[in-house]
């Protein structure tokens, strides 16, 4: 099925391959050291080293991989320890990712997840125990890894990804996503595409590109991919890879139900609002009493229409749109993503180009395919709004004009690929302070002509921000 989707994709888009430069991280980190030169190994200094098995790969040369950016040596491993990795999601993939990254030697890891732990997570989210039910996934997962892996620091963020400002995301070298929602994936993708800056020559500034590694699983199938924002196919370039959400037509649900799912949907969409059970509470698919109520009503309806197959598991599956999941597929896909993160950091092997499919229903299949960019993709081929201003205009009035022109809230933010011009949030008091001081400064001091600025605001839903280029009239 994946194969079908891929071939369909191949036909539908214009493809062109990119020779990726594997030096993003070197650009971002600065060269760690060029003085180190490979030496032949005359004894095995690693025999008793904790990181022996990774360092066999980072320290020793390879003629197999033919990558000029690979610089074997102890410094190569030290890069791993300095790189900052952000993990999105602390669920099935997230738990695995944190473990894998920590055991690659990464020491600066942060993780975002807004969910709390549920009993049904415990068949695969191995960092959680029954006593953790109800607690924050990000916090429990981080604490577990920090306790287990000496020297590794995982910082948890128990919040939605949308709550973090661009400056937060900009502080990482690699982002690894383990999400089960297409929307969250798209949001993250759009954020990283926004952070990748295009210079006045129209070229992508490599030091603003934060590679995004994205994993997804469903049952015994999974995929892992690597996105270089604005340089290679992004999530939105290949949206048709994600199956559209199954929605049943309302008239079928209301008038001509045939399937057990139709009966559950009827109770959910129509009867719940009509009958207002539980003192008119909103339907909560995690509340067993609510599920029982829906199940009972759906059962009634199914009997009325002579429909077979309504049971409690199906009821809950429809209400929560549950995706089946097992530990093994999560393990495989998270490992695949982590291997790519390790390669990005060290060049011990070449990154995949650029999409991996895995399936072990019938035998085992694991292979890669190249996804091409969609030249029409609005997310990674964003065009800028060019705005003419005077160098002496103050930031304050410029922002006011933008708020009016784009219908924004009263607290938009304005950033460049590398820093903030105006960004007021409670999480970053320093930046807020500086931003407020900027309000009374002339634009000529704050921005350079034709460089890209990003205007972000909570009112902007579909894409995260608006790209702006300033043209000076004087």
């Amino acid at each position: 099925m994946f194969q079908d989707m891929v071939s369909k994709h191949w036909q539908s888009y214009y493809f062109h391959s990119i020779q990726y430069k594997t030096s993003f991280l070197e650009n971002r980190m600065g060269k760690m050291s060029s003085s180190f030169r490979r030496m032949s190994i005359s004894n095995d200094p690693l025999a008793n080293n904790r990181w022996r098995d990774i360092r066999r790969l980072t320290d020793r040369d390879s003629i197999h991989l033919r990558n000029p950016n690979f610089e074997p040596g102890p410094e190569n491993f030290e890069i791993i320890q300095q790189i900052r990795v952000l993990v999105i999601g602390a669920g099935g993939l997230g738990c695995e990712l944190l473990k894998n990254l920590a055991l690659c030697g990464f020491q600066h890891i942060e993780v975002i997840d807004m969910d709390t732990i549920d009993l049904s997570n415990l068949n695969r989210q191995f960092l959680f125990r029954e006593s953790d039910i109800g607690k924050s996934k990000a916090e429990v997962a981080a604490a577990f890894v920090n306790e287990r892996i000496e020297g590794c620091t995982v910082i948890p963020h128990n919040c939605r990804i949308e709550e973090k400002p661009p400056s937060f995301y900009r502080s990482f070298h690699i982002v690894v996503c383990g999400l089960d929602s297409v929307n969250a994936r798209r949001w993250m993708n759009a954020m990283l595409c926004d952070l990748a800056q295009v210079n006045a020559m129209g070229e992508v500034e490599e030091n603003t590109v934060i590679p995004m590694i994205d994993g997804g699983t469903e049952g015994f199938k999974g995929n892992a991919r690597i996105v270089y924002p604005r340089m290679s196919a992004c999530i939105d370039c290949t949206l048709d890879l994600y199956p559209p959400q199954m929605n049943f037509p309302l008239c079928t649900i209301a008038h001509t139900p045939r399937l057990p799912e139709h009966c559950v949907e009827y109770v959910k969409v129509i009867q719940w609002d009509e009958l207002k059970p539980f003192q008119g509470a909103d339907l909560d698919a995690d509340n067993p009493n609510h599920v029982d109520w829906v199940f009972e009503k759906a059962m009634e309806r199914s009997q009325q229409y002579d429909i077979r197959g309504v049971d409690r598991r199906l009821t809950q599956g429809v209400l929560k749109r549950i995706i089946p999941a097992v530990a093994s597929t999560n393990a495989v896909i998270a490992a695949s993503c982590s291997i790519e993160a390790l390669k990005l950091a060290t060049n011990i092997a070449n990154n995949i180009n650029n999409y991996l499919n895995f399936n072990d229903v019938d035998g085992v299949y694991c292979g890669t395919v190249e996804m091409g960019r969609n030249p029409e993709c609005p997310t990674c081929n964003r065009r800028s709004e060019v705005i003419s201003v005077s160098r002496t205009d103050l930031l304050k009035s410029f922002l006011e004009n933008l708020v009016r022109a784009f219908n924004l809230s009263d607290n938009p933010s304005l950033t460049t690929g590398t820093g903030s011009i105006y960004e007021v949030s409670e999480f970053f008091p320093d930046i807020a302070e500086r931003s407020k001081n900027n309000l009374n400064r002339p634009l000529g001091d704050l921005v350079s002509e034709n460089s890209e600025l990003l205007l972000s605001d909570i009112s902007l839903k579909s894409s995260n921000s608006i790209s702006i280029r300033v043209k000076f009239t004087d």
Partner: protein
Amino acid sequence: MKDARYDRQLRLWGEEGQASIESASVCVLGSSALATEILKSLVLAGINSFCILDDAVVQNADLGNNFFLHVSDLGRKRGEATLAKLKELNPAVGGTWEDVSLEEWHDERMLYRLSSFSVVVASNLRTSTAAAISDYLFENSIPFISCRVFGLIGYIRVSVREHTVANSHEENPREDLRLDRPLPEFQAMVDGTDLAELSVDEIRHTPYIILYMKALKMYREKLSDPSAFPESYADRKALWGLIESMRVETDTGSTDAENFDEAKAKLLRSFQKTTVPAHVVEILNDAKCSSSSTCTQPFWIICTGLRKFVEKHHCLPLKGNLPDMTSDSKRYARIANIYHSAAVQDAREVYQFIREVERERGADSVISEDMCYRFCKTTDSIHVQRGSKISAESDAGKIIEFLAEENGDAQKKSAAEWLLLLLAADRFLQEKGRFPGTNGVPCTIDSADLKSRVISIVRRCNLNPDQILPLLSESGLPEICRYGAAEPHVISALVGGIAAQEVIKLATNQYIPLDNTFLYDGHTQCGATFRF
């Protein structure tokens, strides 16, 4: 409680799959990163129990690749230290550890011990040791999986004498509508429907399966052949023309209708002659299904019952599920019930045959009517897989065949090269007491040394090294030495995940296992499958 914990996986393998998993006892040889990653997925899935056999002591390098160890475990027995942390994952799973050394694993007494488990999994055993274990377990019909991680390479070998699959979960199961031999009750319903009497709205809500039957009748009349059935593209096109002719106009002049669209989209899938697929015939002709067989394994008893049904009816029992189709509720429910009742009746008949077979073979009655009913829903995808023993010598010959194949797939050839080099690394270990790239010798020297092992393997296969060596890349040998038998966590996690799922397949009998060797290359993240 258990239902909620396992909810996400019960949706895949069902109660019966979960029950099989909960009765599985798994033995794992080794407790390194690869072993614990395999066990993690199995303990989470809820196997009955596991047993770790290992006498290794926790060293620094274990702390860099094994998640089920803590710095405070340094110096402890590794099997014991990992056991405690693995058991925390699922209180329902029992676990033990035995302080046994690798060398003892193929002595007679240990082999006998291994045959008490439902599945045995070996981590990072050299091929000769794995072969000795495989020899014994194969004879005793205990499934065995040997897996390895060597640098960026992963290897999984499934050695199972016979694996049977029933209640499979195909993504696109064949539809079983029987349009060529319609169920009598359904035929009566079709005959009782006069499209001319229906309102426009009723026609637009007529299930496409009725449209098919109406069109088929016209098709047969046109050809003056009462048993004609569309089989070619041209036939289906002609039939489609007849269906099109049944379209009606709405008030707005539109002839668009979902049921007609569905009819077009499903034409090929629906118009399939009712047959018994060749692979099912082959299984039913197996000696274990013959009347003289004394086999009492449930799968073979059920299949023997199925054989009797097929002999009588010349078709498989009806699956009984009707695909969704645009319709009013009443007519859809009526057809769905006709199919369901017929399927129940078929399953009941199969069940009677099964009871007969049980009596003939003097077997206890272990197959319930419910089990039989579920089995009958997927009889077209039953599957029997017969594997082979692991053998370093015969495997080497096959690997070289793959390498020498003229039009072979480049990726598969590269994977074959890694397999050959792993065998060479094993010989290196056997003769020098260490793996290449693991001590004070420069990798270049080990590389030359390793090459001589490749040559001797080729010679043992009675082949000329001068012809075979040029088939190898220049970079493979030094790359193996670079790896120095490393077991990086990430590669172990990936291989461990795949291997764990193979154990679950062997335990549940619902999925088709790897047949029989998988080689993963971390460079490309691509895998290749070989059959030895």
